[in-house]
């Protein structure tokens, strides 16, 4: 396992050093919108981007829905997250090694409603997936659950 990881890291560093495109496509490959109804947008580096079915997500993105909005997102480890109206969901950290299934997935529901079906990251390492709200931290050992925060 160690040699593999070091090869991956070496490749990653090499790609960084050369400033190659794979980094961008990696970052884009963490998840995609599969459902986007009503008003749904992304906040990325302080910018507001509209979100549609097929839009890619990156780690650090914040997903926001309006009063008529809802959205469903599929991650590359097959985790599924969906949010209802008036919701704010921040993807704080996402890392997934598709060979070992090790990774880390931390998201934060700042308000609204969230439905989660956990994927390969949580299955491989019981403490690798966490969902936060302003008043609690959920450690996810699988598989399906709901979170509400707010009025």
């Amino acid at each position: 396992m160690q040699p593999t990881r070091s090869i991956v890291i070496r490749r990653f560093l090499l790609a960084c050093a050369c400033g190659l495109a794979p980094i961008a496509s990696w970052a884009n490959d963490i998840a995609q919108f599969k459902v986007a109804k009503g008003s749904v947008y992304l906040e990325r580096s302080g910018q507001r981007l509209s979100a549609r079915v097929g839009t890619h997500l990156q780690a650090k993105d914040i997903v926001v829905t309006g009063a008529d909005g809802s959205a469903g997102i599929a991650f590359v480890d097959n985790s599924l997250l969906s949010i209802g109206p008036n919701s704010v969901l921040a993807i704080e950290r996402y890392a997934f090694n598709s060979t070992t299934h090790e990774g880390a997935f931390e998201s934060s529901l700042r308000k609204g409603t969230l439905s989660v079906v956990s994927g390969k990251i949580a299955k491989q390492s019981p403490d690798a997936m966490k969902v936060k709200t302003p008043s609690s931290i959920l450690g996810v050992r699988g598989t399906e659950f709901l979170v509400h925060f707010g009025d």
Partner: protein
Amino acid sequence: MHRHYAALIAALVLGGCATPSQDLVVLLPDKEGKVGTVVVQGQKGKTVLNTAYASARTTSEGGVQRGTATQSEVKDVFGSALAAQPPRPISFTLYFESGSDEFTEQSKQEVKRLLAEMARRQAPDITVIGHTDQVGPDPSNDALSLQRAERVKSILAGMGIPAERILTAGRGRREPLIPAADGVSEPRNRRVEISVR
């Protein structure tokens, strides 16, 4: 104004028995009826949810209160979020004729089912995952399984699936379909799995 009064009355009523809470966590059974585990950690307490519809609310003191949610409560609060869930990922498994680049006859049919499934989905993307048997060490199996996945990616791209919608992964010998001892060559473990999202 009506809503404000309603909220005030609710707060007064609740104030007598329990602290009103801002968050609610509910554990659901999965499609097969199995239930997982979620640990809810508040500032001062925690609870473990591991039964269907078990719920947790944090209190204003930072504790966590355990309860059970009703199905109608789930529908009322979470109906829209649940309705927005993406379809569940589906897996297809493909095999090659031994020592060749050709899919087996059965796998050619499986490829047709894969394409039909992709046509049914909105903005589908797939991960092509290579698996090996239990012969040889991890590093060489990792490389071999990734090679197989890359080969299948190029075949699928040739069939019209956009390459940017295809990820590849090499899982090596970590996930045998048929449990086998170290060193056992089991053809059913030398396979490529395609996960459709």
